[in-house]
């Protein structure tokens, strides 16, 4: 076997190797997903209905966007527990800023919308920046820092609204961002696709992506190789904050009001779950965003299928938990078998 590694190899072998590599990186997830899809569609006629497919994709989009940011942070060896809270904060800030701008300026909606979105994104980026600076400058573990900011961010979101939904955003915002469709698909799906593609590109083809892998893989080695650690660490948290804020804005547009209850712990845990199920190593240095996106889709489909199959809502978590563990266990098993060969 070791000789094959030394030879450049003909094109045939190359592609065989590539397929193996693909299976190794993507794992069994798509297979499992196919099983769930086929199984559910046999049992529920509505599962593959157009609307349901759109719904699944939309929900998966939100999760995928957040999980991409989360994945980058984890690959760099960190953890971002604050994403759920950032979703809420961005929602509230967007709605407040937009409503304020709309009533202050009066003029065209577009201006208010832009101001609102900028404010929302800004709040997410700011939280990310704070996380990043604490982790990189003060060398505190990402887990604890983001645990702190999670609490503080949620507190700020609630303080701003007292938990009361924020209304008064221009109708155009809800129509254009939340409910508009292109070729039958909602905007969120396109944004998610763009994010995943962009991040995949960043991971493979840019300095930033390369350094994130390096820092997570072996920080000491990255240091002695002259990689500036701080800048890139901060970058991952800012990215994660920004992407979480994006989801906050999209959700705000979808529900039509700014809500401090959007996001939350569930979103945070799900984004980590999607990243890990998508093959991101919690020890850093390993993982691909496109697989993470597939994992996000998988989790969403699973939840949808359980609903469509009329499973009692109290029993649903049991199924969800078992299938999640099963998926990763099978994946792990197959990976081990493969690398044996």
């Amino acid at each position, binding site marked *: 076997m070791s000789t094959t590694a030394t030879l450049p190899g003909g094109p045939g072998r190359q592609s065989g190797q590539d397929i193996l590599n693909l299976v190794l990186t993507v794992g069994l997830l798509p297979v499992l997903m196919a099983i769930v899809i086929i199984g559910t569609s046999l049992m529920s006629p509505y*599962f593959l209905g157009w609307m349901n497919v759109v*719904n699944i994709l939309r929900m998966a989009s939100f999760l995928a966007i957040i999980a991409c940011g989360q994945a980058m942070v984890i690959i760099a060896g960190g953890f971002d527990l604050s994403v759920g809270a950032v979703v809420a904060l961005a929602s509230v800030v967007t709605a407040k800023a937009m409503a304020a701008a709309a009533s202050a300026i009066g003029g065209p909606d577009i201006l208010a919308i832009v101001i609102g979105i900028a404010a929302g994104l800004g709040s997410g980026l700011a939280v990310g920046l704070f996380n990043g600076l604490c982790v990189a400058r003060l060398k505190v573990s990402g887990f604890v820092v983001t645990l702190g900011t999670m609490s503080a961010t949620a507190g700020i979101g609630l303080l701003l609204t*007292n*938990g009361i*939904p924020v209304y008064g955003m221009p109708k155009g915002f809800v129509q254009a961002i939340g409910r508009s469709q292109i070729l039958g698909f909602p905007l969120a799906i396109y944004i998610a696709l763009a994010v995943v593609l962009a991040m995949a590109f960043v991971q493979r083809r840019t300095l930033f992506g390369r350094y994130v892998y390096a820092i997570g893989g072996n920080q000491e080695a990255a240091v002695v190789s002259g990689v500036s650690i701080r800048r890139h660490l901060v970058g991952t948290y800012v990215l994660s904050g920004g992407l979480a804020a994006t989801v906050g804005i999209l959700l705000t547009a979808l*529900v039509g009001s700014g809500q401090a209850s959007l996001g939350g712990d569930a979103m945070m845990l799900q984004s980590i779950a999607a990243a890990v199920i998508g093959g991101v190593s919690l020890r850093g240095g390993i993982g691909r965003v496109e697989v993470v996106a597939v994992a996000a889709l998988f989790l969403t489909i699973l*939840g949808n299928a359980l609903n*469509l199959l009329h499973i009692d809502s109290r029993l649903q978590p049991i199924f969800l938990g078992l299938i999640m563990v099963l998926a990763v266990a099978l994946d792990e098993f197959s990976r081990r078998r493969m690398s044996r060969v």
Partner: protein
Amino acid sequence: AAEDSASWWPFPVYDASSGTPTEAEYTPLEKADKAYNICVLFPHMKDSFWVAVAYGIVTQAKAENVNMNLYEAGGYENLPKQISQFDDCMASGADAIVVGAISGAGLTQKFAEAAEKKIPVVGVTNPLPKDALPAANYVDFVAMGGVTAKGLLSAIGDEEANVVTFPGPAGSGWAEDFNKGFKDTVEGHDNVKILDEKFGDSGVAVQLKLIQDALQTYPEMNVIWGTAPTAEAAIGAVQLAGRPDIKIISSYENQAMLDALNGGQILAFATQYPVAEGAMAIDQAVRLIEGKDVMKLAQPKADVIDETTAKDLNMDLVLAPADWNPEYSVKAK
């Protein structure tokens, strides 16, 4: 805002102290004898419903000139935190404790301790086990669920109604009670069919997902009954799905429900007059401290509000004024 409770009284309630509710009117004391310390515990302050209760509490505390401190536990999943807050209240020397219980059963030990320490405790808004406390006021949630069902029945007449219920978080107690009340009341009406019950956390995002899935699972669904966030999420989901025919009913009230009702986006919502509940709780606490006569269990008359009844509603008792910011403590003058 006019922070004056004078116009609220007398407030019509059922007096259920003896077990069977009888019609009664509630009128609070003018003023407390002394500036007592009253500790208030809330499950959370994350929606306008609890802000409304807080509004009632703050207003009445000012009216009766007592000190008040309010603590919120951050959500229904934080029972241990509420228990700790209860301990902290006792430790901080409260003369009485008003509690919106996360779980009535879960606080029974604390109630017993407070009784031993002779600290009166008043239950507000959330239901409690029978006779757990010397005084309380809350609606019968089963009855309130029933009220919404009656609202639905009268709105649809003989039309077919295929309902999916979204009662709220499993394990909360109140969600189960609302649901039971609704189900019991529609039972026997052949034109109303309950297709499914979808429990889930009462946040807009979670509810939205549940609704979207239900829209797929049950194309025949034409009534969505659930919590206020359910209704809020449903408005958008129904529009997206192109199903303006679907009727939406909320089992309780908040600012969004009121706006939606005015905008014609929902059929109706129920109210239990949370502002009045908060105010009564403070008064009950003061009466207990002073050893005065107290209504052991006051039940506001839950009403279902639809377009026609909305006009006659005393909004002051349903929601806090829009520009009111929650105050977590009141200092007696």
